[in-house]
């Protein structure tokens, strides 16, 4: 009995300080952010309660609306592109190739590099190298094309990570499943569609959810490539909250934006997991 008490006390002594730390720097700022969202705080000086006005304004603010449109466009296109290319890469890197571990190692490099510096390097490619080849103006200066440049940079880095996860998925598929399928005459696309893909479905779920979440939070690439421009066409939600909330005197208003953003992220992740889990069960 005495040792039971000792055990219980030790666990409490471990967990209570850690929970307090977590509360202090995660939950508390979350609550504060929620409270600020009902004020007209500019980040300094005095402020007043404005009730739900910030939230009402959010839905009529075109700049906020544009940032949601841009962020979702980017996240959806990038997530689909990244997952298709990663699957192809994983299948290739998992086949009977020469220099397998070398190639796998090389293709993972983009993932270990910092997104900001990678963004700067690509910014140079988009500004000087590509225009010289295609004889057109830089993509980054075109407000209809700049978002595609950002998709490319996000994809370049994320494909490395997603490929790795798909490879570890492919390795869980036992060799004899393929052999049985080959005996039944399944080849190429059919083999992938009906055998491989269903078996790595859980990995597809992880990749889609993580990738979508990361892309929705895109920030470094924007800082490095466009700074939100041209003509505010590439302002992601995180970038807008940072830019206008920290320096633009919209602390209260952007707090409301951040609350909505939080709800959006949770909703998207939960919906994705529900939908994809259902698919997994059906297969």
């Amino acid at each position, binding site marked *: 009995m005495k040792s039971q008490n000792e055990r219980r006390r030790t666990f409490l002594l471990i967990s209570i300080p850690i929970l307090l*730390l977590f509360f202090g720097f995660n939950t508390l700022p*979350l609550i504060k952010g929620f409270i600020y969202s009902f004020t007209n705080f500019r980040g300094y000086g005095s402020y007043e309660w404005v009730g739900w006005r910030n939230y009402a304004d959010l839905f009529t603010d075109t700049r906020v609306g544009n940032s949601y449109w841009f962020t979702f466009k980017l996240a959806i296109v990038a997530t689909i592109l990244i997952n298709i290319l990663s699957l192809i890469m994983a299948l290739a890197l998992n086949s009977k190739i020469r220099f397998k571990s070398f190639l796998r190692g090389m293709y993972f490099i983009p993932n270990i590099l910092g997104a900001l*510096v990678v963004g700067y390097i*690509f910014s140079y490619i988009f500004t000087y190298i590509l225009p010289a080849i295609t004889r057109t103006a830089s993509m980054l200066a075109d407000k209809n094309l700049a978002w595609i440049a950002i998709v490319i940079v996000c994809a370049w880095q994320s494909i490395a990570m997603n490929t790795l996860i798909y490879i570890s998925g492919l390795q869980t598929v036992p060799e004899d499943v393929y052999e049985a399928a080959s005996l039944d005459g399944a080849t190429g696309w059919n083999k992938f569609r009906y055998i491989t893909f269903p078996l790595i479905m859980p990995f597809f779920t992880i990749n889609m959810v993580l990738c979508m979440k990361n892309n929705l939070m895109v920030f470094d690439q924007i800082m490095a490539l466009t700074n939100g421009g041209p003509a505010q066409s590439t302002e992601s939600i995180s970038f807008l909250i940072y830019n206008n909330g920290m320096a633009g005197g919209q602390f209260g208003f952007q707090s409301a934006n951040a609350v909505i953003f939080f709800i959006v992220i949770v909703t998207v992740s939960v919906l994705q997991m529900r939908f994809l889990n259902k698919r997994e069960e059906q297969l």
Partner: protein
Amino acid sequence: MEELKVREKYNWSVTILLIIGLITVLFPLYMTVVIAFKQPSEMTNSISGILSLPKSWSLNNFREAMRVTDFWRSLFNSFLITAVTMIISVILHSLMGYAVARNMGKSKFYRFSYYYIVSGMFVPFAILMMPLVKQTAQLKIDNVFGVIILYVVFYMPMNVLLYSGYLKNIPVALEEAAHVDGASTWTTYWKIIFPLMWPMHATVSVLTALGTWNDVMTPLVIMSGSGMNTLPLAQLTFQTQFGTNYNLAFASYLLALLPMIIFYLVAQKQIINGVINGAVK
């Protein structure tokens, strides 16, 4: 016999395609290296002028970039933040994972704690950012120290999830045997459980280190008033101040990428395994 032979044959066409595809990975890196070594006068407007090898492999650009970005100090800060965050994370998060894993089954408090912490994974930094800037300034930790505390908190959800998942596979019987011998829970943890979790410590260290080393946003908003830089943050400052000298800029980018590339070359296997373990569990 023929079966066997077929199985050992390499698929050369895929191999060659993959080698060609490496251009997409290596081209940006090659470009970074050659521009970093060149002088502005060597940079003509044609592509060949940009991409040709430099006339001489002089280190002057690097010397100048180091001076302008205060390289050693930024490197030291990045290293300090990453190393300390890693060590504290391994200690605190494994302890929390242990407390949760061993009590979740029977105690509502720990089950609640687990879901409470893990759900923190969905809280975007954007919503915490502005209140945290105020909070760290009030507590006078708007510096390297504050950034470390924040990282320890931000990585807690993922790491507690990983540790508690791993601990479910370590039988409680091991601890009970030690208990019978009179060892306290605390001692048992450090003597028996902690050493058993090395594979997970490696995963947690790799994931935490990759995330903190490359992160820009947290130091940007928290440390901006302290006059201190991390390595990525120094690139941001550099860009706004000296953005037009590309040779100097690329020397600086290369310096910023180099520590991670070296780390990757040394510990490639551990990094890849760590990332796979973390993502799949």
